[in-house]
C-alpha cells in the first residue's frame, strides 16, 4: 500500500486544499479539493432567541456579514409572520446594495481581477492589487480605497456598525435614516455609479481588447455546462434582496421557479468523507457525482448563473451591459466559468444604480420602519443573493421564539461541487506528461476556483474569511513535487 506522507507543515494551516495525484506516467490520476474547517453555527444557535440571529450569524463571515444579517432578518420576519413597512425594506435593500458594490469591487480589483488585468503568466509578485494599479493607473488604486470607504460609511449609517451591522430586527429596522444622513449617502451612491462606469472601462480596455484573454475565457478547460440558479423579481430581472428563486437548465430553459420557503423540495446536500463541506445538488435530477450536463444535479449560483437564470437587469446601464455580454459571448446561457468576472462587474453596475435609486426615494426617510409582530412564532425561511450565491437561512422555533432547528445553505456552498469540478478539469487540462509544472500552470488551476470568489468562512460557517489555498502535486511514489500556497 502506497502511503502519501503529508508534511506536518500542511496540517498546521487552516485553509482550502487542492491535492493533485499523478500516475506513473506523470499524468493526473485524480484531483481533490478539500475544505478543512467547520464551526457548527446551526447546532450552537439552537436555544437562542430567534431575533438575535441577525446579530449572531453576522459572525459567520466578517467579509459578508450584511448577507447573513439580511437573510437572517428575513427568516425572522417569516417566523413571526410580519411584513416590514416599505421604508424598512428600502433601508435594508439600500444597505445591501452598498455592500454589494463594495464586495464585488474587492473581488474584481484585489482577488480575481489581477489574473486578467495583469495576466495569468505574470510573475506572482505582480499578480496582486499593486500590479493592477500599475497596469490601470495609480488613479484606480485611490478610487478603490475611496469606494470602499464610502460603501462602508453607507452601511454604518444604516446598519449602526460597518463590520457586523445590527439594526435589522423582525418586522423592520431599529433606526430611521435622517435627512442629513440621506444627503450624505446620496453623494456616496453617485460615486458608486461613476466607479461602476470606470470599471466597465477597465473590462473593455484591458480584458476584451486582448484576444488571448478572450480565447482563454472561451476555452473548454474553463467551461462547464451546468444548471444556473438566481433570484428574480416579478419581471424575472435579477434581484439581490428579494424574489423567487429561478433555476434554468444547461440549455437556458426554466427548470424550476420556487419560493425560498420551498427550498427543501428542490435542494439536497451530499456528504463526502474527505471534506467538512457538503455538496448541494438539485434533488429532482439527483447527485450523479462530479459531472456536468443536464443529467447531473450539479448547479451553480454565481454572478454569471444569476444572469443566466434571469431575463435581464432592472436598471438601464446594467441591462445594456447584460445584452452586450451575451452578444459578445455567443448568446445565453454562458457556461464559461471565467466570464463570471464580467458578470460580476455587470452586477456591480446594477447594485450601484439600484443604490442610487433607493437613496433618491423620499419614502426611505419615513420613520415608519417597524411593525411589531403579533403572531405566534413558528418557522420561516429567509433568502437573499449573497455575492457568492443564493443564501438560505431556515429557522424553526418554539412558541416563545427560541430556536429549535437551524439550517443554512450559504453562497459558496452552492458552488462547491462545480468548484471541485472546475479545479479538476483545469488540472487534467493543464498538467501534461513530462512537461514542467510551472507557476503559470498552477495559477491557471487556481483561476478555475478564483472565478467563484469562494468564501469558505461562509461555506463551512467557519473561517477564515477569505480563501487561503494550498495546491499540492503528489507523484505516484507519494512524493510531493510541487506546493503552492496563497493568502487570499
Amino acid at each position, binding site marked *: 500500500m502506497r502511503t502519501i506522507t503529508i508534511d506536518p507543515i500542511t496540517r498546521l494551516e487552516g485553509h482550502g486544499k487542492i491535492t493533485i495525484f499523478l500516475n506513473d506516467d506523470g499524468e493526473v490520476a485524480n484531483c481533490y479539493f478539500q475544505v*478543512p474547517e*467547520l464551526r*457548527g453555527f446551526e*447546532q450552537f444557535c439552537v436555544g437562542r432567541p430567534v431575533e438575535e440571529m441577525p446579530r449572531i450569524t453576522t*459572525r459567520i463571515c466578517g467579509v459578508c456579514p450584511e448577507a447573513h444579517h439580511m437573510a437572517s432578518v428575513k427568516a425572522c420576519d417569516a417566523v413571526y409572520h410580519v411584513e416590514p413597512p416599505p421604508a424598512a425594506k428600502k433601508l435594508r435593500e439600500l444597505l445591501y446594495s452598498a455592500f454589494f458594490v463594495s464586495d464585488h469591487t474587492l473581488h474584481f480589483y484585489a482577488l480575481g481581477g489581477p489574473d486578467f488585468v495583469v495576466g495569468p503568466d505574470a510573475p506572482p509578485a505582480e499578480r496582486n492589487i499593486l500590479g493592477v494599479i500599475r497596469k490601470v493607473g495609480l488613479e484606480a488604486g485611490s478610487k478603490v480605497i475611496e469606494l470602499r470607504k464610502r460603501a462602508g460609511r453607507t452601511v454604518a449609517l444604516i446598519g449602526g456598525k460597518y463590520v457586523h451591522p445590527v439594526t435589522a430586527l423582525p418586522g423592520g429596522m431599529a433606526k430611521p435614516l435622517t435627512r442629513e444622513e440621506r444627503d450624505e449617502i446620496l453623494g456616496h451612491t453617485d460615486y458608486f455609479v461613476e466607479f461602476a462606469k470606470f470599471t466597465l472601462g477597465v473590462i473593455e480596455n484591458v480584458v476584451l481588447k486582448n484576444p488571448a484573454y478572450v480565447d482563454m475565457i472561451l476555452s473548454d478547460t474553463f467551461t462547464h455546462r451546468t444548471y444556473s440558479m438566481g433570484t428574480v423579481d416579478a419581471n424575472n430581472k435579477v434581484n439581490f434582496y428579494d424574489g423567487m428563486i429561478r433555476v434554468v437548465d444547461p440549455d437556458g430553459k426554466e427548470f424550476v421557479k420556487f419560493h425560498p420557503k420551498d427550498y*427543501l423540495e428542490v*435542494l439536497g446536500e451530499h456528504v463526502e468523507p474527505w471534506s467538512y463541506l*457538503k455538496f448541494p445538488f438539485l434533488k429532482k435530477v439527483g447527485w450523479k457525482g462530479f459531472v456536468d450536463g443536464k443529467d447531473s444535479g450539479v448547479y451553480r449560483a454565481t454572478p454569471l448563473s444569476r444572469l443566466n437564470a434571469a431575463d435581464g437587469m432592472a436598471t438601464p446601464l446594467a441591462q445594456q451591459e447584460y445584452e452586450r455580454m451575451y452578444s459578445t459571448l455567443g448568446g445565453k446561457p454562458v457556461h464559461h466559468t471565467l466570464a463570471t468576472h464580467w458578470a460580476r462587474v455587470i452586477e456591480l453596475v446594477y447594485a450601484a444604480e439600484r443604490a442610487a435609486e433607493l437613496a433618491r426615494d423620499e419614502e426611505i426617510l419615513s420613520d415608519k420602519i417597524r411593525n411589531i*409582530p403579533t403572531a405566534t412564532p413558528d418557522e420561516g425561511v429567509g433568502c437573499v443573493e449573497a455575492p457568492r450565491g443564493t443564501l438560505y437561512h431556515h429557522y424553526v422555533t418554539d412558541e416563545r421564539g427560541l430556536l429549535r432547528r437551524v439550517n443554512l445553505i450559504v453562497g459558496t456552498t452552492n458552488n462547491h461541487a462545480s468548484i471541485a469540478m472546475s479545479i479538476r478539469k483545469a488540472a487534467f487540462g493543464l498538467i501534461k506528461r513530462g512537461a514542467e509544472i510551472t507557476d503559470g500552470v498552477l495559477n491557471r488551476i487556481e483561476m478555475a476556483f478564483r472565478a467563484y470568489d469562494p468564501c469558505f468562512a461562509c461555506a463551512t460557517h467557519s473561517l477564515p474569511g477569505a480563501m487561503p489555498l494550498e495546491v499540492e502535486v503528489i507523484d505516484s511514489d507519494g512524493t510531493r513535487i510541487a506546493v503552492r500556497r496563497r*493568502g487570499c
Partner: protein
Amino acid sequence: MSKPKLALYWAASCGGCEIAVLDVEEKILDVAAFFDIVFWPCAMDFKYKDVQAMEDGSIDLCLFNGAIRTSENEAMARLLRRKSKVLVAFGSCATEGCIPGLANLTTKEEILDWVYHRSPSTVNENGVRPQPRFHVPEGELEIPEFYEEVRTLAQVVPVDYFIPGCPPQAPQIVNVLSAIMAGAPLPPPGSVIGAGEKTCCDECGRKREEKRIKRFYRPWEIVPDPNQCLLDQGIICLGPATRSGCGALCVKANMPCRGCYGPPPNVMDQGAKMISALASVIDSQDPEEVQRILDQIADPAGTLYRFSVPASLLHRKRTQVTA
C-alpha cells in the same frame, strides 16, 4: 537599525478582524512603513516556512485573532507564541471565544450529528461522516481534528496583551499602533489595551434613571424611546457589564449592547456582572415575582455570555453524569 517585525494571524474567526485592520485606511501605510510585516496570510503570500525558520522571539509584535477550534489553530498559536516577543490576543474570539464560543453550550458530537445526518437538506443514506484521515484510491487525504470545545488564545499559550471587540473598532486599533510606533512604554503584561477603563454606559448618550422594572421586553416587542436608557425600558442591554471602547455604536443605533468588548476592568465574569446589574433593576421584593420576572429573560446563558462563554467561569456545557 532594522525595522521591528510584525505578524498578523487568524485562527477560528470570521475575517472581520482583518477587515477592521484594513479599515484603518491611510494609517495602514504608516504601519507598513514602520514595521517589517513578516507574516499576514490575509494580505500577503503565505510564508509559513519562513515563520518556522525564524529565530524564536524574532517577531516583535504578533496580533493573533480567532479562537482555538481545531488542531491547526492550536499548532499555529504555539508556533507564533514561540516566535513572538509580544503576543496580542486581537479581538473578541482570541480574547474571550466570541460567537464561535457559543459552541461550548453544545458538544462536538451534536454539531457533527446535525450537520452530516439530521439537517433537513442533507441526503446521506450511507451515514458518511468526514474523517481526519481518509483513503482514496490514489492515496490518503487529511483534514484537521475538530476539537471538543472552543478555547481562547490565553487558554492555550501565555498572552501578553488583549485587544477586545467584535471587531475592535478602527480608531482603537489606530491608537494602539500609534502608541507602539511612537515608542510609548508598554503597559504591564496581561493588560487590556485598545479599549476604555469604564463601561459601555459611560459612552452611551441615553438618559439613565435606574428605573425599577416589572417586566423585560425582547428587542422586537417594543419601539424604545431613543433618549432613554434601554435597560430602564426593560430591554436587556449589556452596557453595564461591558468595557467601554466601541463608542456605544449599537445603542446609538437603537439596539441593545450584547457585550462584544468583554467585561469591564476588574470584572472576571461578564455574565455574573450582568446578573448583579439586573438584580438591582427588578422592581419587587417578592421572591416568586422576582422569579417570574427573571423567567422572562429568554436564553440567559446565550444572552449574558453572548461573547464570553469560553473565557467565563462557565467555560463549557458540563456533561451530565448519572450514578
